């Protein structure tokens, strides 16, 4: 057991898979010699060499297209898109190419690759370098979408993503890179499609993802100490596949549902989960489900503005308390 940053967990997760399988290769902008703009790939170039860890031009379409061509023909590429906002410039591969090749070819074409990308706000980067865009990917049949919140999950879910036979979009949260957590020694392999109850509780279920997980946990502690409200917090971890069993199981015990989403309001993943709850767990609910999200705005750069845009510990706690005690 060692304490590791989320950033170092990315390095260890990639290294674990590259050590295991010589067909795992890694490409992206500034990922090699420079060690990544977030320093989340430091040392991989030295460890695995310039053939397996390869710097690319600023050509997001070429990066994702090349990853796909390599995946179709036998490699297991990991491709980095530096900021998840840049997915928009290569969205053809995310939306049209990776996820449809198997279906359109009646199962002939395989696309086992991982796109890892820096997602989310909190760094004061403004509207084009701060978005939470996991919902852009969640809606596309054929993709898998994961977003770890802890160093241990980074390693385990990275392993699961690299070993998965489908294209996986792996959202790392930029504001979590410096956070620390306990990580066991040795190989860590998790499974895609499993949510994790990170805090058991009996009064309400709070669903959260990535940066919103530590905030939901802090809000739950605040609610407990200040109001005696005992919340269960679930780290959704994987949007596709989605672990509805764990979520609906929790709802059957707590009878109240809250989602904490960093994304702007419309079409967030929480909307899908609320819809599932309404459809399949309506009679378990003692009150209306509540979505706590960023407003439907582009993200501002100034710290005070960004802080009031993203769901905060205070806003989460206040909203849950208001719903449960009104």
């Amino acid at each position, binding site marked *: 057991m060692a304490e590791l940053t989320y950033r170092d967990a990315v390095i260890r997760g990639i290294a674990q898979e590259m050590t295991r399988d010589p067909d795992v*290769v890694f490409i992206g902008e500034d990922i090699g010699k420079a060690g990544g703009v977030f320093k989340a790939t430091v040392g991989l170039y030295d460890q695995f060499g310039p*053939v397996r860890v*390869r710097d*690319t*031009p600023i*050509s997001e*379409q*070429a*990066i*994702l*297209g*090349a*990853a*796909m*061509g*390599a*995946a*179709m*023909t*036998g*490699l297991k*590429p990991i491709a980095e898109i530096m900021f998840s906002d840049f997915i928009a410039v290569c969205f*053809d*591969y995310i939306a*049209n*190419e990776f996820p449809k*090749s*198997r*279906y*359109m*070819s*009646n*199962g*002939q*074409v*395989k696309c*086992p690759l991982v796109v890892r990308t820096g997602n989310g706000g909190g760094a004061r980067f403004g509207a084009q370098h701060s978005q939470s865009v996991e919902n852009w990917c969640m809606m596309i*049949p*054929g993709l*898998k979408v994961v977003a770890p919140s802890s160093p241990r999950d980074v390693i385990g879910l990275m392993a699961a993503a690299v070993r*998965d*036979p*489908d294209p996986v979009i792996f959202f790392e949260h930029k504001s979590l890179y410096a956070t620390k957590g306990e990580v066991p020694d040795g190989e860590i392999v998790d499974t895609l*499609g499993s949510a994790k109850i990170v805090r058991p509780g009996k009064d309400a279920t709070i669903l959260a993802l990535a940066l919103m997980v530590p905030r939901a946990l802090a809000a739950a502690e605040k609610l407990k100490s200040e109001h005696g409200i005992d919340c269960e917090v679930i780290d959704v971890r994987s949007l*596709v*596949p*989605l*672990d*509805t*069993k764990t979520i609906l199981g929790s709802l059957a015990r707590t009878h109240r549902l809250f989602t904490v989403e960093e994304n702007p309001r419309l079409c967030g993943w929480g909307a899908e989960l609320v819809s*599932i709850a309404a459809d399949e767990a309506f009679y378990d609910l003692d009150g209306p489900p509540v979505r706590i999200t960023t407003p439907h705005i582009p993200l501002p750069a100034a710290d005070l503005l960004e802080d009031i845009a993203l769901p905060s510990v205070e806003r989460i706690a206040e909203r849950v308390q208001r719903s449960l005690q009104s």
Partner: protein
Amino acid sequence: MAKLEDRAPAPKGSLNDDIGEEKRLALYRTQVVIREAEQRAYDLFLQNLVKGTSHLSLGQEAVAAGFAGAMRPGDLSFCTYRGHAHTLARGVPIVQVLGELMGRDIGLMRGKGGSMHLTSVEHGVMGSYAIIGAHLPIACGAAWRAQYKGAKDVSVCFFGDGTTNIGAFHEALNFAAVWKLPVVFVCENNLYMEYTPISDVTAVKHPAADRAASYGLPRIVIDGNDADVVYRAAIEAYDKARAGGGPSLIECMTYRYSGHSRADPAKYRPEGELERWKERDPIKLYRERLRAFGVGEDAILRIDAEVKREVDEATEQCKAAAPPALDILTTDVYADGGFAWRN
């Protein structure tokens, strides 16, 4: 590399030149297969037996025949939505191509892909891509795998003149050149992107070749209607790729006889242009080539008749074939064979 402007006249006499009789007859047959199958696809449209859209290669047969004819087993083709020709040229059975166009269970992808997405991995046809430019980077990736693995296969990527003005073209060319990838980019310049002449919207005369220098590549323009010229250009580019010499970009001058798609009657063409190109019809030209090399008329007619019969038989087989089973609607979305996104 032969250029359009200094193309030599067909040599007379012996069949035992660098191409040889057996290869020439194969190149001819492939062109006739494409011509007959494409014409049949068009006829089946008119009978409403082919639905959706379709983009024919009538007039462009020599490009597909020449590049495929020079490939080895294991070489990979990446095609566009105008991909019937390149798929047939790799030896995919006519019945599977027509069956796919007709949405039958015997179709290449059982009707799940359609005309614009013909794919046959076992024949090295790694897909037909309907988003302009998308497959150039994908071909780079397949070539990267070959380079990484030390394999000697070449990835060959076909696209139209219109593709040269989209970003992915330029990203892929630079990427392939910088990484010295064994990939061959083949631009079929048929003079029209969709409805608009490519020259109206492009800053240079030769939309592919005149950009080659930007990526440190030689400028190559060839006669895309002469299967021998195409074949020789392909061999040279493949040899270079296999030897670690990196990518090639080859612009093939050709002409499509039909409109962009079935919805297009091609009324934008100047009068006489189609007729002028038909004087240099690739199949007519190649028949003359065969005769010049001493191939008898009976051998040529035999190939024509055999192909015609194959296409007729394939057509009847497709007409009689069952539609796809409805349960394939939700298969192969994910690698587990199904479409489940939740537990």
